[in-house]
């Protein structure tokens, strides 16, 4: 009886001790508010993998689409709520950098990354994670019904047979739309050639969508046979069983990267740096690779199912600086040319 009691009480003491330990650990843990545009389904996995190495940092995700996260961060410019941005378009981060909203930091091991994926500043303001690449989603079933042939190049899309069978995102509301437009300008000529291309493409476009993933989903659903979107989305729809072919036009494709940065004014400087350090490790890059075919650390990426094999070679040498500094001008010009009713069709 007594033994039992002792056993019981020692067990209770044990439990109490463990729970106290756990409590003390949880009180030591730092809460980091992390803004992100990473797909909802990936977030839990990212936090879990990170916490395996750093259980003392507790990530509080704030997730929304790229446009909304960017708008939110800019609106909070004088009253920042975020500690870290992990997984937002580099174009958006460049905008924030020009507002002085980012805290430059050189993470450990940054030299192992592809230089393209690191901010050019002496102390980088942001570091890249992975790239999302433009692609054309082509619905083979619907295209066959309309007697279309799969396009091989961007200029193929100008052929009259594609008229009304093409859909793309509006660059004024979609980051994917902007990277398409900026890549065409860089490939076909910034002053004239790119706009000529878009003038002709515009005649074939059925309509412009607000979001960047919608064209591919519409193509997957057969609503419009050809959607200009990004490869990641196309691969996902294909995995769901949509009759899609993901085409990488031969001239090359635009891309943007997801990147990480520390928000200036954070009160958790140390934890933020720990997270950024970790975000460029090999382990992290392998983690990004499950969804993205192109990641910041060379030699890590393995082919991703349903991704077109030649995607890497076709990525253009994207001039982010030019794109960011001319964004306003490009969007104004685009709006003037295509975003009004009288010009449509």
């Amino acid at each position, binding site marked *: 009886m007594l033994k039992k009691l002792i056993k019981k009480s020692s067990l209770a003491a044990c439990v109490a001790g463990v729970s106290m330990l756990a409590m003390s650990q949880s009180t030591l843990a730092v809460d980091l508010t992390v803004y992100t545009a990473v797909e909802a389904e990936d977030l839990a996995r990212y936090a879990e993998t990170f916490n395996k190495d750093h259980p003392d940092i507790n990530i509080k995700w704030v997730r929304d689409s790229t446009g909304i996260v960017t*708008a939110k961060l800019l609106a909070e410019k004088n009253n920042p709520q975020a500690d870290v941005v992990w997984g937002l378009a580099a174009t958006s981060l460049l905008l924030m950098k*020009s507002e*002085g909203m980012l805290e430059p930091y050189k993470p450990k091991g940054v030299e192992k990354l592809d230089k393209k994926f690191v901010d050019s500043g002496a102390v980088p303001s942001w570091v890249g994670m992975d790239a999302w690449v433009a692609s054309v989603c082509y619905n083979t079933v619907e295209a066959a019904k309309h007697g279309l042939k799969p396009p091989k190049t961007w200029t193929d899309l100008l052929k009259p047979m594609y008229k009304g069978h093409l859909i793309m995102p509006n660059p004024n509301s979609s980051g994917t739309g902007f990277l398409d437009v900026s890549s065409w300008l860089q490939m076909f000529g910034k002053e004239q050639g790119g706009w000529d291309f878009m003038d002709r493409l515009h005649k074939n476009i059925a309509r412009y969508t*607000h979001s960047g993933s919608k064209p591919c989903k519409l193509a997957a659903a057969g609503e419009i046979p050809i959607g200009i979107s990004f490869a990641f989305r196309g691969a996902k729809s294909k995995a769901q069983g949509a009759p899609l072919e993901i085409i990488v036009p031969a001239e090359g494709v635009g891309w943007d990267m997801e990147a990480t940065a520390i928000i200036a004014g954070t009160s958790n400087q140390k934890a933020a740096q720990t997270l950024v350090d970790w975000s460029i490790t090999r382990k992290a890059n392998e983690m990004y690779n499950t969804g993205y075919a192109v990641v910041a650390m060379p030699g890590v990426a393995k082919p991703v199912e349903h991704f077109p094999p030649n995607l890497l070679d076709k990525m253009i040498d994207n001039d982010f600086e030019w794109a960011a500094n001319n964004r306003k001008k490009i969007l104004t010009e685009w709006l003037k040319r295509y975003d009004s*009713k009288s010009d449509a069709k």
Partner: protein
Amino acid sequence: MTQSAATTAPAAPLIKPKTSKDDRIMAGFILVISLYLLVTLAFPLYAMLSKSFSTYAFDLTNFEFQVNTGDGWSEPFSAAAQNEKIQKFKPEDLVTSSDGRLAPTDLFPDFSFRSPTLYKLRQVRGDTSFLFKTDRIDDTDWHEYNSNDFRRIVIRASADTGLDNFRTYFSTPALFRSIENSLFIAFLSTIITVSLAFGFAYAINRSTMRFKGLFRLIAMIPILVPSLLPGIALVYLFGNQGMIKGLLFGESIYGPIGIVIGSVFFTFPHALIIITTALAISDGRLYEAATALRTSRWRTFWTVTIPGARYGLISAAFVVFNLVITDFGLPKVIGGQYNMLAVDIYKQVIGQQNFEMGAVVSVVLLIPALLAFSIDRYVQKKQVAQLSARSVPFSPKPHKQFDRICLGYCTLVAIFIVGLIAVCQYAALIKFWPYNLSLSLVNYNFKVMDGGGWDSYINSIQLGLYTALAGTIVVFVGAYMVEKTNGFFATRSSFQFLAMMPMAIPGMVLGLAYIFFFNNPDNPLNGIYGTLAIMVICTVTHFYTVSHLTAVTALKQMDREFESVAASLKQPFHKVLSKVTVPVCLPSILDISIYLFVNAMTTVSAVIFLYSPDTTLASVAVLNMDDAGDVAPAAAMGMMIFYTNVGARLIHQFVSRNLVRRTQAWRGT
């Protein structure tokens, strides 16, 4: 102030202290509620208005250059002087937004990045910055660059105030054409909706057809769903993979056609309610006279029915006009290339982070909405005089052929309404339209989609309940104070004015105004930004007017004698309020709460800028899932809102029937 005391009791001095204490408390209440409306309505709108005047322009006087072509540095000269010299930019070229960039190389016509020329650049005042590559330089030191680096410099705009945003707006055809589009769609939808609703109301009021109750129920369905749901149904019906797209003869549903059909759907019940009321109050004696004079039905219709219902028709027209022009969900879903004002606000703010231009479009959208609102107010004031105490209600006589036509017509409208809803439910259950038509529940797995998953559904119900609870209390107390207090005439009438305002303010405009006002670090109420509380406040304010009018109407039915008697019996006002007024007005109080609940569940526009990742809402999830291309899950979530609202209505009916039996027995006798 003591007017009532003076009239009820000659021994005024005895009662005076009691009433005046009551009056003071009530005055306090009025002040609190007025303050509430000021903080939740007037101040945010003011913040938005001032945002629309906050501009960005390149201030060339703020930048100075020195050039060295090999023979030493030139004297510093300002960018403005250089621009003057070469006549490069006109003042309007220098207007931009906060993300505008200007390359100083444009000011040097003979610039070449290969030349050995050296450049120095500095900011005169430290209030803006320039960028070298992507690095921000905001000091006032001189910075030296060789020509190859100099071309990688852009200068940034500085903040100012003025009318420039409006000028930019009206010189951008893509933007201001939206005004024309919005007006066109609103006019067309108004005409169609009012005609259809009039026919429907006429059939219900003036025929002896069967199934009237059923038709009334069906006609109310669109109130229970978000305005974008008909858009989704139309995509499944008339989209490129649509079930009956042949009916459009090759026209695209994406654009004006889709917006108008969808608008007719979601505004139909609003028009019907008003027109039914207008037809119901027509005087039966006029019809008797017409029959006695052997006037033809046709002539009676034009000389008696239409003039009798004209105020109702006008009122319905303005309500529909306002609903359509301020709606955002529907044109976003099915508008295609067709730009409308409400969608422009969203595009400016979310797509381009151009809050200033968002504010400008909001101001523009406010004008037609305010105009429609004030005309409607004016017309409604006139209608009151038309009613006479001696009117006799009209009771229709059976007329076989006419009844059959009415039944046929109402059936068609009912098929339209039920059809669109049924299509949504069907689409939600299809596995992968149009390639895999097997039934499944995959589209209800909201967790893997954008929009917040099932949490957003729970949040929506919470928002609905809180809005109904807080809103009913605020609205009823406010109405009570306006209706039953004495004196403070100026305060009461300004409160009355504030209470009517929300009807004219589009939801998106209100939401955007809330960002500007509450997301300001200097605002002591900053803490509620990003919480459920701000959405509750916004929703209550957005739907304040109709609730307020309902409460005022109920209170008007009660004689002020109750208060006077209570005062003479030395009873404090809150006792009358809790023992008499609230129980008597209970049916209206329940109506207000169900109205607020249903609208909180379906509203998109008022909360689209206010939700945070922890407080995503079902209605916004419908929009975001559709936006991401997950159309079937969007339909599924929309139907969840529908069923929830139906459930809420049933509970409301059950509760009010029971309560009415207990509290309203006096009405029957």
